[in-house]
């Protein structure tokens, strides 16, 4: 088994690479190969009382830390200006800072490079809302300073024709706490790569994900947590539901515990629920341990099916078909949604999923 964290940027993917073998490259509108003619994103930031936002020359920023794939590297390099959102040291606020990316059509390719910095000891929440039609390559670099506590929520509410390649790389300082939620609820092809590295001991990362893939959609999340420092923690939990012909989700969960990362605690889980025939969920957890001295390490992956027999069973107990599906889907996501600290975001996710259940291609009950 190779150490995934060390995989180099190797040029434009061809689809033969392990990391790209699930992705429908032909539907990316060339986004994985070239960014010619691309424009910078209109990143609208609703400034909260706590965060400062500015554009700076990308050249003036340090080189990218951690693994970076070709499209993200391209987006970074081609973005002459980077948005830098700073939560200053000493800030303590749960009021979210909203970052909105609104697509204006799929014809022009949009690039963003965004840096989110939570300075030493700060506490803050950033909510990134993605809506509209877009062809987007987005590189987001997150720095969680020593003792800082940062939550980054990224909601992909794209229109059905959008393509989104995204990288979200977080570096955690000493005793830093990072909470990530990636909710992918729309788009044609969405491929997001959330990665975490630790620059000092004591870091704690929680990576949550919710996704819902409908007919023809490809939704892919590839996570990597690289434990290279002692006494750090990570917890990864992604849940997805799929419905309709050709709905496809991919979840890859790579966790590396390096020799020096003694006392690591890590757990990752992915659960998928197939609501109809014709949907497919690929789920691959990888745990690579190079030290005998870990506190705890585990992973789990399951894919279950809501089928006609389950529908029959619930109906046979008086429950109508719509309620039955809602019951199953709500129940499935319940424990994960309960872990989302932002009530408004949690409510939005539930609402969005229930709307999707409404346009389901289900049969009319059983008569």
């Amino acid at each position, binding site marked *: 088994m190779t150490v995934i964290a060390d995989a180099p940027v190797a040029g434009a993917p061809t689809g033969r690479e392990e990391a790209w073998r699930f992705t429908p490259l032909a539907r990316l509108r060339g986004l994985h190969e070239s960014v010619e003619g691309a424009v910078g994103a209109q990143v609208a930031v609703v400034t909260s009382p706590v965060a400062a936002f500015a554009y700076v020359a990308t050249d003036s920023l340090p080189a990218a830390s951690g693994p970076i794939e070709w499209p993200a590297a391209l987006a970074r390099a081609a973005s002459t200006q980077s948005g830098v959102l700073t939560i200053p040291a000493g800030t303590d606020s749960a009021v979210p800072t909203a970052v909105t990316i609104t697509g204006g059509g799929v014809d022009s390719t949009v690039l963003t490079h965004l840096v989110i910095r939570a300075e030493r000891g700060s506490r803050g929440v950033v909510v990134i809302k993605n809506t509209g039609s877009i062809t987007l390559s987005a590189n987001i670099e997150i720095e969680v300073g020593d003792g800082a506590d940062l939550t980054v929520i990224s909601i992909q509410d794209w229109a059905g024709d959008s393509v989104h390649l995204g990288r979200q790389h977080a570096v955690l300082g000493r005793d830093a706490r990072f909470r990530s939620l990636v909710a992918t609820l729309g788009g044609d092809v969405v491929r997001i790569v959330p990665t975490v590295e630790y620059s000092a001991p004591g870091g704690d990362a929680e990576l949550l994900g919710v996704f819902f893939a409908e007919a023809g959609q490809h939704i892919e999340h590839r996570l990597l947590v690289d434990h290279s420092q002692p006494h750090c923690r990570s917890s990864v939990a992604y849940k997805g539901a799929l419905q309709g012909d050709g709905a496809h989700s991919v979840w890859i969960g790579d966790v590396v515990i390096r020799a020096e990362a003694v006392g690591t605690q890590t757990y990752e889980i992915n659960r998928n629920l197939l609501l109809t025939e014709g949907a497919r969920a690929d789920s691959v957890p990888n745990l690579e341990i190079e030290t005998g001295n870990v506190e705890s390490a585990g992973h789990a992956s399951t894919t279950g099916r809501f089928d006609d027999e*389950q529908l029959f*069973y619930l*109906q046979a107990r*008086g429950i*109508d078909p719509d309620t039955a599906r809602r019951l199953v889907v709500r*129940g*499935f996501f319940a424990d994960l949604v309960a872990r989302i600290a932002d009530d408004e975001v949690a409510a939005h996710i539930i609402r969005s999923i229930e709307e999707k259940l409404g346009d389901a291609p289900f049969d009319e*009950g059983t008569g």
Partner: protein
Amino acid sequence: MSTLDIHDLHVQVESDAGVREILRGVNLTIESGQTHAIMGPNGSGKSTLAYTIAGHPKYTVTEGSITLDGVDVVSMTVDERARAGLFLAMQYPVEVPGVSVSNFLRTSVTAIRGEAPKLRDWLKELKAAMAALSVDPKFAERNVNEGFSGGERKRHEILQLDLLRPRFAVLDETDSGLDVDALKVVAEGVNRVREATDIGVLLITHTTRLLREIPAEFVHVFVDGRIVADGGPELADEIEASGYERFLGAPATS
């Protein structure tokens, strides 16, 4: 007082092997308060009758009728039948991922009773019903039938029977896979509902094991998609002693 009437019921099933007629003219009338047993060898179509009453989409009624107090059941959806008061305790109840037993039961009770029970009353009711069936309280937080043993699945079915209080219940091979102790607990659960309500019960079994715990005053022998003999408990005794040999190839009773 209610009547579940099955008249000249013909049912076919479609499979890869083609269309096959499984029920070939079943006649059966069950009144409130009565307990009937249908006994028959494996493959005789007993379970098809059970699932047809519940409305499983796999089975198509081609002739005859099922009525509940004169109202056509065949045209009802599965959930309408349940709300009309029909209940099927299944032999192989399926797992439902993501749905806890407590959430499932409350949703079901709400659908059947037409209104949500008050939370406080409901918790009390559920606790008592579970205790009566010697079910571990932790059971309520588990996902429906997920990882349940055979015995737990059957107890869960009878727990639903107790909470939903249907007008008619069909128990499909409820004794299968149960050890002696579990069978007693499950049978006691059924008997409690029989005593407390005027439920009509249809027991479907191929052995007399269940009938020793849940006495049926009407026994019907089911062979090749039809009822070929009707009688009382003595018919069950005869089957226990001599098997089904005598009934094979017999004509329908009506």
